[in-house]
């Protein structure tokens, strides 16, 4: 059974008790992302403290992979600088789209390495990335808003 490769215990744990679940106020930017192939949705909010990601919260209508991924994301980026968090995002994306051929770096990705198995299932890669795309979009919005007021 290959199932355990994909649904590693870490993923199932995050799925059952997701970190950052439930939308929080106040926030600096929000992004809603959809997976058009299945209809899954995430709404994700970001709050920054200067250049640091101080809070991430989300509401995810989706499968175990998308929910667990949003949870892991929350753990990985909160407390980091925006630049660092985007580097983590890039590493996560590279692994997720790597067809199982990219060796993930646990120092960078923490629990995120558990998603290496998902990379072998192309149809599920979008699930793993849904929250990350929302995060990226939200961060861009904060910066846009900053520039607009600068």
């Amino acid at each position, binding site marked *: 059974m290959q199932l355990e490769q994909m649904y590693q215990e870490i993923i199932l744990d995050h799925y059952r008790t997701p970190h950052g679940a439930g939308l929080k106020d106040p926030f600096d930017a929000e992004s809603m992302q959809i997976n058009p*192939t299945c*209809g899954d949705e995430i709404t994700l909010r970001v709050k920054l403290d200067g250049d640091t990601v101080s809070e991430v919260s989300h509401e995810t209508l989706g499968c175990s992979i998308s929910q667990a991924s949003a949870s892991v994301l929350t753990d990985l980026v909160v407390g980091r600088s925006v630049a660092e968090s985007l580097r983590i995002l890039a590493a996560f994306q590279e692994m997720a789209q790597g067809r199982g051929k990219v060796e993930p770096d646990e120092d960078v990705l923490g629990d995120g390495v558990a998603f290496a198995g998902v990379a072998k299932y192309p149809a599920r890669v979008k699930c793993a990335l849904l929250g990350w795309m929302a995060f990226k979009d939200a961060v861009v919005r904060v910066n846009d808003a900053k520039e607009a007021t600068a």
Partner: protein
Amino acid sequence: MDLQKVRADFPILSRTVREGKPLVYLDSGATSQHPRQVVEAERAFLEQHNAAVHRGAHQLSEEATDAYESARARIAAFVGALPEQLVFTKNATEGINLVAYAMSNATGFDGAERFVLGPGDEIVVTELEHHANLVPWQELCRRTGATLRWYSITDEGRLDLDSIELSERTKLVAFAHQSNVLGTILPVAELVRRARAVGALVLLDACQSVPHMPVDLTAAGVDFAVFSGHKMLGPTGIGVLYGRTELLEAMPPFLTGGSMIELVRMEGTTYAPPPQRFEAGTPMSSQAIGLAAAVDYLGAIGMDAVYAHEMELAAAAIEGLSAIPGVRIIGPATTEDRGGAVAFVVDGVHAHDVGQVLDDRGVAIRVGHHCAWPLHRRFGVAATARASFAVYNTVDEVAALVEGVKAAREFFKVA
């Protein structure tokens, strides 16, 4: 029907997936598999008769044209139509777009007045439509200023005939013969009666009926109908638009180019009669021949037998799945006025995760909104799991589905 003999005609059914599990293919509602006979018919054509159809005067071209037109005639007979009432398209989606664009091309086209739409006019669909039978009408309304209205769906997954009234401004009613999600068979005769009463045209999306049950389009009394080759044991790349002769003759063209013209000058062009008027460019010749072989194959089994077999599978699926705690069928829970698509949700396990557990066991189903997103919203779910059947499926395969769903509940610890 000799099921083992049928299965032997489908090479793909003997392959394994996911480390040696026999393939249990329950996704024929998305696309069906092909019997050897279809692939062989295409190959024989390509190796013996391939040439440009309707464009050449040499022997090969004559043979190719004959093969292509014979395919049209056989497919027409299969759905109770005349050959000249069938237009080949690349898929059903193109067929629906063809009608929608022809309608917006009707302004100023001699004799096409009845296709002209404007503000105040209405197109009517239903809430269960596949995107293919929804978005083209949204776009047509955008282009013309007409209004889109729709019948809603009851909690049981049936059409709510009282949800709207047609009016004299209703120009066209478009609906699925059978829902690709719920399996519901819509009341065609009643919908045709209501459309006729207000002088509206009727387009039937027969994508999920023609492959699975006997369908006579002339007897159904619809004006237009579409279906796709790849859902009925035939090739991808070919679909059919049926139109009543009088309508096709009056309708302006959609795609333009070679083979659909009468007279071309730099300053302007006149158009050939149907069906050529609607078949611009080099047609899908080998695919038409493949589809005709598919139709011959289904015809030899008999569509009554096909339907009976698939309904036996659907009944087993409904029964087996309903018996699992926390599993809810989305759509009619009986086999009455129903086809073989069975959609369901599992409490506490997302459809993607159900599908993944099944896939791991070799069982291929479809998960998501199945291109019927508004219908899913209607039922308050983002996604469903859907099993769908074809003539080659077995009750053992249904049992594998039911076992797999149980396993998914166990794996995700909701059992």
